[in-house]
C-alpha cells in the first residue's frame, strides 16, 4: 500500500464520522486556510498569489509594448509610463519569480526530505503575509505615482516601506526553507543525498539570505534619507540608483536557480532515478549561485575587445567570472539531464516540456546578458536588457508551470491532464520568445530602454513592439488558462496514484 493509499483510506474512515459533524462554513474554511501552518497550504498560497500577480505583470508588459508601437502617440499618460517600467521589473522579480519558486519549495521540500512540516512554519506564514502586504503597498504606491523617480513623495515613502516588507517576508520564507533542508532531513539522509530540487531550493534560499539584506541595507539608508533629508541619496530620483541593482543581472540569476532543480527532478522521475554523474547536478546548481558574488558587490563587469591583449584580459577575467560562470552551471545541468534521458530512453513527461523550455529561456537570457556586457556590441541603455529580464523571469514562470504539473498531484492529491499542460507549455514558450526576442533585435538597432515616446531608429519599430505586446498578452492568457486548469484539476480531477517515490531520485544512480 502506498503512502497515498494509506492516507486515502485514513480519510475514508474518518469521513463517515465527519459527515455527522457540522460542515465548516466558507468563512471558517477561509480563516482556517489563512491561519494554517501546514507547509502545503503556505506553498499553495504563495503559488496562487504569484500566479495572480503574473497575469497582472504580463498585462503591464503588454501595455508597455503597445505604448511603444508608435513612438509619436501615447496610449498611457506620460507620468504613469515611468512608473510602469519600474513596476514591470519589480513585479517580474518580487511579485512573480521569487515567490513562485519559494512557494514550490515550501510545499515540496518537507515532503522530499521526509520532514513532517516545514521548519518554523508560522514564521513562513508570517513571511507570506509580509510579502503579500508589501506587494500590495508597492502596487498602491505605483498606482499613485510613487515608485522610484515618482512625483508623489509620500507614495515613494510607501514604496520603500512596501519593498522593506517584501524583503522581510522573503527572508523569513527563505530561512524556513533553508532550515528545513539543513536540519529536518529524515534519519540517514545526508546533504548529498537530498533530492536535487531540495538542493536547488537550499542554494536559492541561502543566496537570497545573502543578497536581500544587502538590498535592505541600501534601502534603509535611502528610506531614512528620503524621509528626513532628501539630499544625500539623491531624493526620489536617487532611489533607483541605489536599489536598481536588485532588479537586474546578476541578482535575477539567483531567482532562476530552482528552475534547474525542477528540470533535474522531473528528468530523474522520467529515468526512474537513474542519473549519471549525480554529483555533477549539485555542482551545476552551485555554480549558478556564484551570481551572489556579483549581486552583493553590486558590480557590473563588462568586457571591451578593443585595445591590447593585456587590457582585454584584465576586463575579460572578471567578466567571465561574474557573468559566465553561472551560465556554465546551467549548461552542466542541461547536459547531464539530456545525457540521462538519452541513456535511459525515458518516456516523455508532459511536465518536462515547460520545465525544459523554461530552463532554455533562462539560459537564453543569461547568454543575452553576457552579450549585453560586451561593450563593443554597444547594447547598453537599449531595450536589450529588458529582453534579458523577460527571458529569465518568464523562463522561471514556465518552469513553475512544469513544477506545478509535476509536483501538483503530490501537493493537492489529484492528477492534472497531460495534454493541456503540454499545449500550454508550448504556448508559454512562444509567449516568452515573442515577449523577449524582438527586444534582442531592437537592442541592436538602438531602441532606448525605459522610453516609450519620442525615439526613432531605422527598422520596423511597430513590428518589434507589437510582437512584444502580443507575447506578454499571450503569457497572460497562458497563465490564466493554466491557473484555471490547475484549479479545476486539483479540485475535481482523478485522485492521484502517485507515490512518494516519485518525488525522489535514486541516490546511487
Amino acid at each position: 500500500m502506498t503512502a497515498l493509499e494509506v492516507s486515502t483510506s485514513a480519510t475514508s474512515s474518518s469521513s463517515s464520522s465527519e459527515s455527522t459533524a457540522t460542515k465548516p462554513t466558507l468563512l471558517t474554511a477561509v480563516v482556517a486556510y489563512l491561519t494554517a501552518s501546514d507547509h502545503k497550504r503556505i506553498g499553495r498560497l504563495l503559488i496562487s498569489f504569484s500566479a495572480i500577480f503574473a497575469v497582472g505583470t504580463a498585462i503591464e508588459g503588454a501595455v508597455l509594448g503597445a505604448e511603444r508601437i508608435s513612438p509619436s502617440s501615447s496610449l498611457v499618460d506620460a507620468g504613469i509610463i515611468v512608473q510602469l517600467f519600474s513596476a514591470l521589473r519589480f513585479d517580474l522579480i518580487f511579485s512573480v519569480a521569487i515567490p513562485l519558486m519559494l512557494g514550490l519549495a515550501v510545499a515540496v521540500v518537507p515532503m522530499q526530505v521526509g520532514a513532517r512540516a516545514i521548519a518554523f512554519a508560522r514564521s513562513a506564514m508570517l513571511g507570506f503575509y509580509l510579502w503579500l502586504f508589501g506587494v500590495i503597498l508597492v502596487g498602491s504606491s505605483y498606482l499613485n505615482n510613487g515608485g522610484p523617480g515618482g512625483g508623489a513623495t509620500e507614495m515613494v515613502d510607501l514604496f520603500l516601506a512596501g519593498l522593506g516588507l517584501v524583503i522581510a517576508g522573503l527572508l523569513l520564507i527563505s530561512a524556513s526553507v533553508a532550515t528545513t533542508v539543513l536540519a529536518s532531513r529524515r534519519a540517514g539522509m545526508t546533504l548529498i543525498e537530498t533530492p536535487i530540487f531540495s538542493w536547488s531550493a537550499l542554494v536559492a534560499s541561502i543566496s537570497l539570505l545573502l543578497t536581500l539584506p544587502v538590498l535592505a541595507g541600501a534601502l534603509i539608508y535611502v528610506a531614512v534619507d528620503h524621509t528626513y533629508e532628501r539630499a544625500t541619496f539623491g531624493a526620489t530620483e536617487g532611489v533607483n540608483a541605489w536599489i536598481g541593482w536588485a532588479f537586474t543581472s546578476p541578482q535575477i540569476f539567483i531567482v532562476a536557480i530552482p528552475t534547474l532543480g525542477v528540470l533535474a527532478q522531473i528528468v530523474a522521475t522520467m529515468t526512474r532515478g537513474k542519473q549519471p554523474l549525480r554529483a555533477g547536478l549539485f555542482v551545476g546548481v552551485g555554480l549558478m549561485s556564484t551570481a551572489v558574488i556579483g549581486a552583493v558587490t553590486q558590480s557590473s563587469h563588462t568586457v571591451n575587445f578593443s585595445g591590447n591583449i593585456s587590457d582585454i584580459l584584465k576586463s575579460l577575467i572578471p567578466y567571465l567570472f561574474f557573468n559566465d560562470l553561472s551560465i556554465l552551471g546551467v549548461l552542466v545541468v542541461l547536459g547531464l539531464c539530456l545525457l540521462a534521458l538519452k541513456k535511459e530512453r525515458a518516456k516523455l513527461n508532459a511536465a518536462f516540456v515547460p520545465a525544459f523550455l523554461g530552463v532554455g529561456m533562462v539560459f537564453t537570457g543569461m547568454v543575452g546578458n553576457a552579450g549585453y556586457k560586451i561593450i563593443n556590441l554597444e547594447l547598453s541603455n537599449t531595450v536589450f536588457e529588458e529582453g534579458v529580464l523577460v527571458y529569465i523571469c518568464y523562463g522561471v514562470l514556465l518552469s513553475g508551470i512544469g513544477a506545478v504539473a509535476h509536483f501538483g498531484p503530490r501537493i493537492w492529491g489529484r492528477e492534472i491532464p497531460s495534454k493541456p499542460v503540454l499545449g500550454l507549455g508550448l504556448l508559454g514558450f512562444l509567449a516568452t520568445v515573442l515577449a523577449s526576442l524582438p527586444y534582442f533585435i531592437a537592442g541592436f538597432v538602438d531602441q532606448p530602454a525605459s522610453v516609450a515616446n519620442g525615439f526613432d531608429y531605422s527598422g520596423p519599430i511597430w513590428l518589434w513592439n507589437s510582437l512584444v505586446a502580443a507575447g506578454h498578452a499571450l503569457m497572460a492568457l497562458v497563465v490564466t488558462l493554466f491557473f484555471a486548469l490547475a484549479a479545476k484539476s486539483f479540485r475535481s480531477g482523478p485522485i492521484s496514484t502517485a507515490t512518494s517515490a516519485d518525488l525522489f531520485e535514486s541516490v546511487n544512480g
Partner: protein
Amino acid sequence: MNTSATALGAGPTVVMRRPALVVAGLLSAVSAMLIGSMLAIWLDFRSNAPLRESPDGSKMLRDWLPENIKIPEVATNTMMMTFVITCVMAQWAVYSSRRNDSKHVSLALGVVLLTEIALVNAQFAVYTQMGIGVRDGSYMTMFYAVTATMLAIIIVCMGFTLLALFRSIAGRAGDRDLVSAHAFYCYVVSAIFAALWLVVYVQK
C-alpha cells in the same frame, strides 16, 4: 464513496539536526550582510568626501565628520567592552547548560539580558550626548541609519535571550541547542558591532 483527496501522509521519523543553531547561523548571516552593506556604503561616502585643511594647516582631512560633532568615545568604548561581557556570560550559560545546571543558566542569561539593556541605554546615551538631528546633513542621516539598524539587531538578540531565559526558567535545563545558538548569535552580533565600532566610532 470517498471522493476527498489528500496528498502524502506523514514521512518517516525526523531527525532534527540542531535547528536552533542552523537558524542562528542564518540569522547571523543576514545580520552580517545587512550591517556589512551599510558599512560599505558608509566607507564609500567617506572616501568620496571632499578634502579640507586641518585646523593647524599641517595636513589635509576628509571633510566627512562635521567639525562641531564630537563622538562620545567613553560611551562607545564602554559598549564594546559590554559586548565582551555579553559573550562571556553567554558562554557561561552554555557551560552551565552542559552540566544541567539550570540555576546558573538562568543567572547567566539574566546577566546577558542586563548587558543588552545596558547596550540599548548606552546607544541612547550616545545619541543624547552627540545632540545631532537626523536632518542636519549627510553624516548625521547615515549615522542614525546605521546605528539604529545596529540597535535593532541588538533588540533581536535581546528577544533571543528572553526566549532562552524563559525556557531555562521554565525548567528546560538541558536545552543546550538553544543556549548554544544564543551564544553563537551573541558572538556574531559582537563581531558585527566591533566592525561598526571601528568604522563609525574609531575611524569616524
